């Protein structure tokens, strides 16, 4: 990559959201801001190649985008409904009253993650407006048609305008609830990357996990005091750290117990552990930890063990117990059962898992967990049936390959199994 291309890529990463946010504040319309920002970056590619890098790329982009927006508004000025927008040409509109924190990008994130928008629209809009991904890129990531994603983004922007969803920081009262919605969106983006769905895709979408981490870092920089933001960042880092060991050369998903721990990213783990320690100190000082902080702590325990046999399962179970009290869900109960299996044996765990049958009947991990417990109990026939169901429901090639191999390694039931051991 040439220096200029590298500078443009870096500027796109660092400045996109800032440019869109500044323009949104000035012109009060997301679509004008987005189109002008895209035009400014396109111009940057030409100008920077010809003239070299400007001394301050961020300022250059914001100024250029501002001019593009004004050009655009002037072109459309004659239309009556544009009069209001045209008024913004006579200088900056007075800033909105400030909420708890004043940052254009943070307002942009809260606007894109507004609870009045459908969750899919929030995800798409955040990736577009804050992450700077193109609509076709987002469509590819979520396996929908480009036109569908285009409509989703366009409709969300239209709703923001028509319903007058404010471009503003939530008030201090609303902040915790609104932050949690933002974190949900970021975690959804991360999870789609971590275990990509759909038979035609790679098992892990590195681009999406990276983007989710980048956006969470941004939120962390903007809201450094928020424990759940720190918790989610730690959680993502500790999961991402294991990515190099998660898929075999043959494209098969490698479960935690079988991963080459030497391949884990030590730097990400160290950063994740630092954040978890920070949150443990806050918890010791009386701050009750939320869901992401507990999940991060569980992953910190996993990533602290040099070998699967060194895993402190009793601590993991204690953390799951805490999580069950805070946010009970069948999936949490299922994950807790995995720790129970390590401490009290597969039979005790199976009893817990079987109670989740109704709630998790359509969830591939439920059947995969059950299959594994049945396998460990030597109940091969039932295990096979559970693997079959898990394979049927798994939407990811790497996972299907792993489950299929596991199923095909099963030994027949009964005394024969005992003899062959």
């Amino acid at each position, binding site marked *: 990559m040439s220096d200029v291309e590298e500078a443009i890529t870096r500027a796109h990463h660092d400045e996109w959201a800032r440019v869109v946010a500044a323009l949104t504040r000035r012109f009060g319309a997301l679509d004008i801001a987005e189109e002008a920002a895209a035009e400014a970056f396109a111009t940057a590619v030409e100008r920077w190649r010809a003239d070299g890098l400007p001394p301050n790329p961020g300022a250059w982009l914001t100024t250029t985008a501002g001019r593009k927006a004004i050009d655009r508004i002037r072109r459309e000025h004659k239309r009556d409904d544009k009069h209001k927008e045209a008024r913004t040409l006579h200088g900056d509109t007075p800033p909105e009253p400030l909420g708890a924190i004043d940052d254009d990008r943070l307002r942009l994130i809260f606007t894109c993650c*507004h*609870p*009045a928008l459908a969750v899919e629209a929030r995800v798409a809009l955040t990736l577009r407006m804050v992450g700077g991904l193109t609509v076709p890129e987002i469509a590819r990531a979520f396996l929908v048609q480009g036109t569908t994603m285009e409509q989703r983004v366009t409709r969300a922007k239209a709703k923001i305008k*028509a*319903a*007058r*969803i*404010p471009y*503003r920081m*939530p008030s201090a009262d*609303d902040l915790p609830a609104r932050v949690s919605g933002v974190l949900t969106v970021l975690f959804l983006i991360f999870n789609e990357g971590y275990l990509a769905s759909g038979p035609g895709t790679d098992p892990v979408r590195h681009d999406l996990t990276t983007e989710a981490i980048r956006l969470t870092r941004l939120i962390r920089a903007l809201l450094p005091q928020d424990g759940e933001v720190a918790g989610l960042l730690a959680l993502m880092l500790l999961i991402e750290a294991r990515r190099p060991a998660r898929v075999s050369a043959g494209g098969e998903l490698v479960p935690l117990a079988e991963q080459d721990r030497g391949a884990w990213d030590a730097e990400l783990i160290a950063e994740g552990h630092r954040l978890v320690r920070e949150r443990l100190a806050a918890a010791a000082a009386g701050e009750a930890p939320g869901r992401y902080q507990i999940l991060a702590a569980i992953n910190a325990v996993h990533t602290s063990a040099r070998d699967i046999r060194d895993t402190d399962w009793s601590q993991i179970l204690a953390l799951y117990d805490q999580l069950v009290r805070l946010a009970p869900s069948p999936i949490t109960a299922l994950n807790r059962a995995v720790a129970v299996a390590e401490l009290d044996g597969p039979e005790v765990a199976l009893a817990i898992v079987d109670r989740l049958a109704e709630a998790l009947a359509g969830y591939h991990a439920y059947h995969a967990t059950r299959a594994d417990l049945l396998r460990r109990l030597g109940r091969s026939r039932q295990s096979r049936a559970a693997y079959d169901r898990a394979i049927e429901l798994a939407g990811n090639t790497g996972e299907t390959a792993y489950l299929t191999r596991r199923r095909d390694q099963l030994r027949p039931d009964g005394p024969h199994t005992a003899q062959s051991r």
Partner: protein
Amino acid sequence: MRYLVSVIDDKSDPGSTDRRPAISAFNERLIAEGYWVFSGGLAGTDAATVIDNRGEQAVFSDGPFVESKEYLAGVWVWEAPDLDVALKLAAEASKVCDRKIEVRPFL
């Protein structure tokens, strides 16, 4: 910015019938704080008539324009600076009315 605020009742799971005093008090507050433009409860959908005069002569049909178990039971028009303000009021309105509330901006 004006918003149409619809009160949605459900034939199979109707809201409670004793809400009038609470709604009146809520209206007083909306007026005092400058949000209230108009409000009114509606008679049941069996009192509705649909008129279609797009053809040669007007056709009158008995009943609402759409048959569903959910129906419009009343409306407000509010003046609010943005959706967040309208949504906050709507959350209160839903409690006060014991019914679902839809918020839609006027064009």
